[in-house]
């Protein structure tokens, strides 16, 4: 029999664990945005070496499963003498992985701008910095918002993978809860509700931003 009580009781520990889900995905996307901007700049750079590094970065991080990247990072860091808490390694790995997708999102948005946008700026004598900060980026960022929100939603879900390196986020907390209460169904339904709630909020935020920033 489905126990309403067990279902409701699961929310306490799971919501507490959701801190880590939000932390890993929130800091992960923040790091991903910063690194993604750098990788995107490298990909669009006129230096061949920079473009090559960016291409390598993107294809490695998109080609290897995040779970493998997490384990690699987890075991690699101590070997090279870096001892950091698992949560730091997890956030960094998630951020690095996200940067590959985010740089591609931005490269796509920039590439989708009609060439006439830049030509009009160049024709009035605008310099490169103003061309980027006033014409290209404001449009590219707005265009990329739906894809970025989508990426964030993927990260919230992917953050369940960091349970494997011992972080007590929603998924790991569910496993623990299920093991003590012997009510796995109730617990995992509660976990699903929490992920769904977070992502519905994000989707709403995305729609709001799109609406606000649309011209």
């Amino acid at each position, binding site marked *: 029999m489905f126990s309403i009580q067990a279902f409701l009781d699961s929310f306490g520990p799971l919501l507490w664990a959701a801190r880590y889900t939000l932390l890993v995905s929130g800091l992960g996307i923040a790091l991903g945005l910063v690194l993604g901007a750098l990788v995107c700049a490298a990909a669009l750079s006129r230096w061949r070496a920079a473009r090559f590094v960016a291409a390598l970065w993107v294809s490695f991080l998109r080609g290897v499963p995040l779970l493998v990247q997490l384990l690699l990072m987890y075991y690699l860091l101590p070997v090279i003498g870096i001892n950091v808490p698992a949560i730091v390694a997890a956030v960094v790995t998630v951020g690095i992985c996200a940067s590959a997708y985010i740089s591609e999102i931005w490269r796509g948005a920039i590439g989708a701008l*009609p060439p*006439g*946008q830049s*030509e*009009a*700026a*160049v*024709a*009035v*004598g*605008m*310099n*490169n910095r*103003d061309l980027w900060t*006033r*014409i290209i980026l*404001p*449009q590219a960022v*707005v265009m990329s918002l739906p894809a970025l929100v989508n990426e964030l939603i993927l990260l919230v879900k992917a953050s369940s993978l960091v349970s494997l390196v011992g972080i007590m986020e929603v998924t790991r907390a569910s496993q623990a809860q299920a093991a003590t209460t012997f009510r796995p169904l109730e617990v995992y339904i509660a976990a699903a509700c929490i992920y769904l709630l977070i992502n519905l909020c994000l989707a709403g935020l995305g729609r709001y931003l799109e609406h606000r920033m649309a*011209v």
Partner: protein
Amino acid sequence: MADASSVEIRGVDKFYGSFQALSAIDLSVPPGKVTCLIGPSGSGKSTLLRCINFLEVYDSGEIRIDGRMIGYDAPGGRRMSGGALRRMRQSIGMVFQQFNLWPHMTARENVAEGLLRVRRLRRAEAMARAEAALEKVGLGDRMDNHPARLSGGQQQRVAIARAIAMEPRLMLFDEPTSALDPELVGEVLGVMKTLAGEGMTMVVVTHEMGFAAHVADRVAFMDRGELVAVDTPEAILTRPEDPRIQSFLRTFHERNSF
């Protein structure tokens, strides 16, 4: 206009890979005059126009604006510095077939942007000049609209205002009315006629033979990357000697009469 520019084009070649888009082009554009470029599709009209403000790089020959070479420091020499090129471009206005307005800015902001970023005017001054330019093209009541809220004709007039607000001495137009519904062509040509009347030097790529016939001082005909003839509108449009011009005008009239 007291200080309208002249343009001297001599021996200009332009290649896309092994394809020669411009062959030994010679053309003089006298100050304060309107020169129309006509010719079949793919003949190199846009390419030539875009070489004048170095939006397109020409490979040899020279283009001089008021005697100053654009793009290179000397014929066959090194490329001009970015700063020097930008300074020359400030006094060359350009209007595109697709308007190319910046969609995230209002009409006023579109026009003020160059004044703020390139001319480095104070905000109040830039806005005042932007408003004056918009008034001039008859859009005084549309300044706060974004381009998406304007008709094609209105957008193209904003684009013209954006160019003239910079107080250029030369204006380049690349088929400014080709993307417009027929009933909107007149308002844009009207603004261009006014500019011509004020003595602006204008180079206009166009398929509007009426404009070429009535407003242009000179008409240049291009075919396959060559400049076939330059003469008065009358000579080119009503009694052309070159068979290529005759055949172009014949297909043109067939297309536009029924």
